[in-house]
């Protein structure tokens, strides 16, 4: 009987991490940033219909970088989780923290137990109401979860993006226009070329909206904002 090859757990984890990182780095970047009235999400996305940013619940949005099919499954699972919780208890009981923990568990379990880890990195954002703070969670392919302040970036050259934003994002959350300018210039600095507005997906969680806070900003409107 042939013996199975022995691979040390360290080696296996390292290989999986490398594989996942490579997959995510191939993709394009997404930025979440706090602005005056909530949270702005900007994605480098040439498609006008295959979205990388999605509404999850009243004040919660999700975006994901990496493999689209894997992100889509996580997105649907998140919406089901949120809607079920809101239906069972109350709309205000659906929180980004519980959702982010759920994603962290799922990604962590798949990373350690499956042969192929998920090649996705996700951001869960919640706009704070009634004086509460905004929340931005970044969840990595291995399930590690980070609580971010001010801004967060995933996908592509996310570390370089974080560094770029760290230099320029200072103090109080900027107005929507300033935040959008900063996000697009950050994305452009990574690709070293001007991005057409049609190739940027923009959405906001706006705390001044009644009910559902999520709103997509179409290219025409971002053009007006940026001019």
């Amino acid at each position, binding site marked *: 009987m042939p013996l199975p090859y022995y691979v040390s757990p360290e080696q296996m984890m390292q290989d999986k991490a490398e594989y996942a990182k490579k997959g995510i780095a191939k993709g394009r970047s997404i930025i979440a940033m706090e602005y005056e009235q909530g949270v702005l999400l900007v994605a480098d996305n040439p498609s006008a219909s295959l*979205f990388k940013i999605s509404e999850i619940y009243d004040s919660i949005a999700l975006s994901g970088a990496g493999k689209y099919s894997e992100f889509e499954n996580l997105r649907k699972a998140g919406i089901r989780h949120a*809607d079920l919780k809101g*239906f069972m208890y109350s709309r205000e009981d659906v929180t980004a923290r519980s959702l982010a923990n759920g994603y962290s568990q799922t990604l962590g379990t798949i990373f350690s137990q499956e042969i192929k880890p998920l090649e996705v990195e996700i951001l869960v954002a919640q706009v704070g109401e009634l004086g509460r703070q905004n929340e931005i969670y970044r969840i990595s392919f291995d399930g590690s979860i980070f609580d971010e302040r001010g801004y967060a970036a995933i996908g592509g050259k996310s570390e370089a993006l974080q560094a770029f934003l760290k230099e320029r994002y200072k103090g109080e959350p900027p107005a929507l226009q300033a935040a959008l300018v900063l996000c697009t210039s950050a994305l452009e600095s990574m690709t070293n070329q001007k991005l057409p507005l049609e190739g940027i997906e923009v959405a906001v969680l706006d705390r001044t909206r009644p009910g559902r806070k999520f709103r997509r900003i179409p290219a025409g409107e971002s053009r007006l904002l940026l001019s």
Partner: protein
Amino acid sequence: MSLTPDDQGSSFFDYLMRQRPDLVPSGRVWPAVSSQPDDNRMAPLQPLPHGTTVLAVKYRGGVVIAGDRRATEGYQIAGRRMDKVFKIDEHSAMAIAGAAGPCIEMAKLFQTELEHYEKLEGVQLSCEGKANKLGQMIKANLPMVFQGLVVLPIYVGYDQKRDEGRIFKYDITGGRYEESDYHAIGSGGKDARNSMREHFRKDLSEADALRIALLALYNAAEEDVGTGGPDLVRGIYPTAKHVSAAGIKDVEEPQIATVYATLIDARKREN
């Protein structure tokens, strides 16, 4: 959407049926039925709160949907402030007659259903699609009907493709029928329909449609003990919503109070 047989689909109602049948109004597990025929007779249900008369009237730019505020338990009044007209999404509303508990639960479930679909698919269901989905949910409620828990809605929506308001009525088996002008259901439904038949014309204005709807509720309350008229002592009036291209809009209580004040004055003069 994955096309494999184990696909989860985009319906919250189906998801709930699979994952948490205990949360679906009709999915609760009831005591097993005995094999002795005599044991199968149900113990008489305690009277449950019931909603009574609700109606909808079309006008030039949309639909007005209204309902009285009374809930009854047998011959007792269970509630004077019950709201039976529910906003479902930005362009539709439903009003319910029947057992109050399952009614409210169904309205909440239908709201979640439409929002869930919109988030998963990235687009809203069509007006027709929403009406059909509600029919399926009522059909799933059929076992509850045999226990005496009837839930019957009127559903109104603004069809953005056709550019008109639409009214749908249902039967207990989930059968879906479209009404072209107006409809009323509930214990005073017949009286309300009679009243509307006298006053309805095509292409009404928004204000006239509201007046006809409120008049029909008033007339129904005069003939039917289950229907509550305007309660001038406590200041409780029927509720109404306009569903039009601009979205859904609550009719403010002072406006309803004014309509009733004029109506009652006219009645007094006639007598």
